[in-house]
């Protein structure tokens, strides 16, 4: 057994332990912390599976931003836990355990009995990669070969933010999301919020740019930019923008809008919806990615900020 295998088994054991902790621990706050640790270690599993693009996304969005939104909710709902006394009966828990165990066992058997050699679309990706002029196969799939999925996913982000905003009370409609954050202006948080964003913004843009040829892209870069924005908001150096703001809404629709316009252009002047002309494929895709970066960073930040709670004044 090599060192690598020992490391993999230890990693899998810790991840499994954290998953059990997340489900079994009575305190919700502890469960949330366990889930964040789980998400960050799952990013390591993705690295071991040679999927660095997914690892970056999982660490930034699944572990990082998802963890922040869960922690915030757990902190605000902490007092309600004592009030919740209902518990499912033993029969419900027992049948749930049997159902879950049999589904997990079926999946495990399916993983052990997968066909050999496994079916793959990788050769097709390689043979068509010349059409876009980009070397990162995952970016090629995301932006060109399965561009429809990625465009619709932008629409899902937009729908999610519309859903969150529509939960505002009548008084707060159109106002600023979340509570005004107060922090010691000479404290560590305010210091970090002044120190990190310049570097973080450069890193976010670099991740977008390098995504054309190496692991990275609009999602990962957007998550980095969103976290920088949130850091500044949480340190009290800036406030969340009022959601009635026109420029904010313009940024939110710019990503899916540009994607849609380019897609319709492919329908009008080319063979199909979202078909890029070969000569302009790379500049078009990079243009969409830049608009997507802005949209993703803004949407992720606003999703974390939550529903409007204060009037704009």
């Amino acid at each position, binding site marked *: 057994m090599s060192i690598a295998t020992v490391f993999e088994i230890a990693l899998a054991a810790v991840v499994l332990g954290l998953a059990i902790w997340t*489900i079994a621990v009575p305190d919700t706050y502890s469960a949330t912390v366990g889930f964040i640790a789980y998400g960050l270690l799952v990013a390591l599993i993705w690295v071991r599976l*040679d999927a660095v693009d997914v690892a970056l996304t999982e660490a930034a969005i699944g572990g990082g931003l998802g963890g922040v939104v*869960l922690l915030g909710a757990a902190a605000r709902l902490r007092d309600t836990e004592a009030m919740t006394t209902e518990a499912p009966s033993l029969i419900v828990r027992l049948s749930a355990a049997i159902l879950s165990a049999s589904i997990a066992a079926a999946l495990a058997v399916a*993983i052990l009995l997968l066909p050999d050699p496994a079916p793959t679309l990788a050769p097709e990706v*390689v043979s068509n990669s010349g059409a876009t002029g980009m070397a990162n196969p995952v970016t090629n799939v995301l932006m060109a070969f399965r561009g429809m999925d990625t465009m619709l*996913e932008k629409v899902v982000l937009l729908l999610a933010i519309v859903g969150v905003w529509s939960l505002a009370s009548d008084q707060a409609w159109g106002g600023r999301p979340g509570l005004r954050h107060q922090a010691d202006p000479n404290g560590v948080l305010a210091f970090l919020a002044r120190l990190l964003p310049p570097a973080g913004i450069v890193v976010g843009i670099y991740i977008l740019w390098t995504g054309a040829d190496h692991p990275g892209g609009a*999602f990962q870069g957007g998550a980095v930019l969103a976290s920088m924005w949130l850091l500044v908001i949480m340190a009290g150096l800036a406030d969340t923008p009022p959601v009635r703001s026109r420029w904010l809404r313009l940024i939110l629709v710019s990503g899916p809008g540009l994607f849609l316009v380019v897609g319709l252009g492919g329908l009008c002047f080319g063979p199909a919806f979202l078909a890029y002309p070969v000569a302009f494929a790379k500049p078009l895709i990079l243009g969409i990615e830049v608009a997507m970066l802005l949209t993703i960073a803004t949407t992720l930040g606003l999703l974390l900020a939550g529903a409007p709670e204060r009037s704009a004044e």
Partner: protein
Amino acid sequence: MSAVTVFGLCAAAAVGLGLYGLIANPQPLRKIIAFNLLGSGVFLLFGIVGRRGAAAAFGNDPVPQALVITGVVVAFSATALAIALLLRLFQIAGSTTLDGPAPASPPSDPSGG
């Protein structure tokens, strides 16, 4: 035992644990976390299958990778929306129970509705 097998069994267990937590835990926030655990297990299964389908000098099939990236972002949006719904329920009703009618007199101060 290869990395694929080890992580595959881990992912299958995560799906089972998430499903159990989703059904058996009465608290909505715990259900959201359990649902995320279930989703994470499903994404990992995608990654395992993609790893086995590695070909043409890639370590992992790029098509499932791209789908998982899309899935992670969609799962995050759904989680954020679910949490916003839960916090709004708490704001209006003063509790987060899913069973029966909410208490008539909310203990906390609701800001309209």
